[in-house]
């Protein structure tokens, strides 16, 4: 019972944070709402018995990636963004569309999932099981992902250190 109450409370916090993220006009407030979303997601994972995923969620997303977000906002000293009022099409079609979509997804999940409900903590979530799955059953996808991230890092280094090439014919020899 307590589990269910906590789960609903943090789910509500999660959604509220996500809405607040869109409503706030100051980047740093938006970033902080995103941190709240990630932290409450971590609590949800914890309540579902996936302790390792919860801890990793906090360490990586809330603790490292969002620090970089905040860092960039501080570094650029981004001010308040201007409200444009939003487009009417988004209001007319977006909100009903989103509602219909979420109802559809919920209905499909409830009716056709077929596996029935699983008690919290019954699925493998311990670090040992995850490690075994990651480095045994899913070794190739894991390594391919690592290479992909490595390529992304190298790409960003190349982009960041690109020297200004003078346009042909624009400047004389230096």
């Amino acid at each position: 019972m307590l589990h269910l109450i906590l789960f609903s409370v943090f789910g509500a916090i999660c959604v509220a944070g996500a809405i607040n993220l869109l409503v706030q006009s100051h980047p740093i407030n938006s970033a902080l709402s995103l941190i709240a979303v990630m932290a409450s997601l971590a609590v949800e994972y914890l309540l579902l018995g996936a302790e390792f995923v919860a801890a990793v969620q906090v360490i990586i997303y809330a603790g490292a990636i969002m620090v970089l977000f905040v860092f960039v906002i501080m570094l650029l000293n981004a001010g308040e963004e201007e409200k444009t009022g939003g487009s009417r099409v988004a209001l007319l079609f977006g909100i009903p569309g989103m509602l219909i979509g979420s109802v559809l997804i919920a209905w499909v999940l409830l009716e056709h999932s077929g596996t029935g409900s699983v008690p919290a903590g019954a699925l493998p979530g311990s670090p040992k099981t995850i490690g075994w799955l990651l480095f045994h059953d899913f070794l190739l996808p894991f390594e391919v992902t690592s290479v992909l991230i490595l390529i992304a890092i190298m790409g960003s280094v190349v982009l960041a250190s690109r020297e200004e090439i003078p346009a042909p014919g624009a400047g004389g020899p230096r």
Partner: protein
Amino acid sequence: MSVIKTVIALFILLTAVAYSVWLERKVVGHMQNRWGPSRVGPFGLLQPLADGAKFLFKEDLIPPHVYKPLYIAAPMLSVIFALTSIAVIPVGNWVDIAGMHIPLQITDVNIGLLIILGITSMGVYGVALAGWSSNSKYSLLGGLRASAQMVSYEISLGLSLIGVLITAGSFSLREIVDAQGGVFWGFIPRWNIFHGQEIAFFIYLCSAYAETNRIPFDLPEAETELVAGYHTEYSAMKFAMFFMAEYANMITVGCLATLLFLGGWHGPIFGPPILQAILPVFWFVAKVFCFMILYIWVRGTLPRFRYDQLMAFGWKFLFPLAVANLVITALVVALTA
């Protein structure tokens, strides 16, 4: 039960925080050929109380140019994250009081170490937001430095702990300590620091000093360049909260070093049953105390790094060293298993 333990642990932690400040002033004072606090009570022992009263009664200034919600929230965040991690730290084994078998730990979770890492990685927000919301150049520079420094050193900190995790085979702090029981050749304790993790301990030490913004890595509050860094605009109790957070973090780091590298509560046990029950806690506290003295000693000895030196040290020296240590530990464990 947990509530009682939480209250006791918080009381002890906050007292320890207050007296680490006293200890630091006293020890650094003697290192610099001064007396340190000596007026309030014998040996200045009541100085923390006087300081606390002073902080409480000082006027709480809020400068007009700050971004108020975050300016007020930042010190709270700092102190909350600094005090939370004590919840998973075990200070000893089990005790039997009035027929109850009580673990000396607020809560035992099987991913204790990850929880501490998560909480400390969140701790940077207090500093970063304080720097940003103060809306002053010194504070902003301090906050920027703090977030860059913490993100950089967290990597080597995490990597230095993986060696310990590989040898212990668990994330639970209690199991990690249990794996360090016993002795080599009859006299050298089987602590991780004597068990192939010497380099990891060095990396942990450096990164932990950087994570807690202590000399020689106290760039975020370098007073010669940045007045007081991220807490320049803070006064009274809000400033005291940053101060408390810093010292509580030092104690957490000391506890973690004791648990992971220095054998936790393991030590010579002898005497009557009551002494046998107290001695493990005594050894734990003694090790943390030595770690705090080391902190203060380093503060009294080393000069501050330059900012580029700090980054180069973190990325070009500690990080490769940590990776090498990890690979070698994994190889040794794999070959001897």
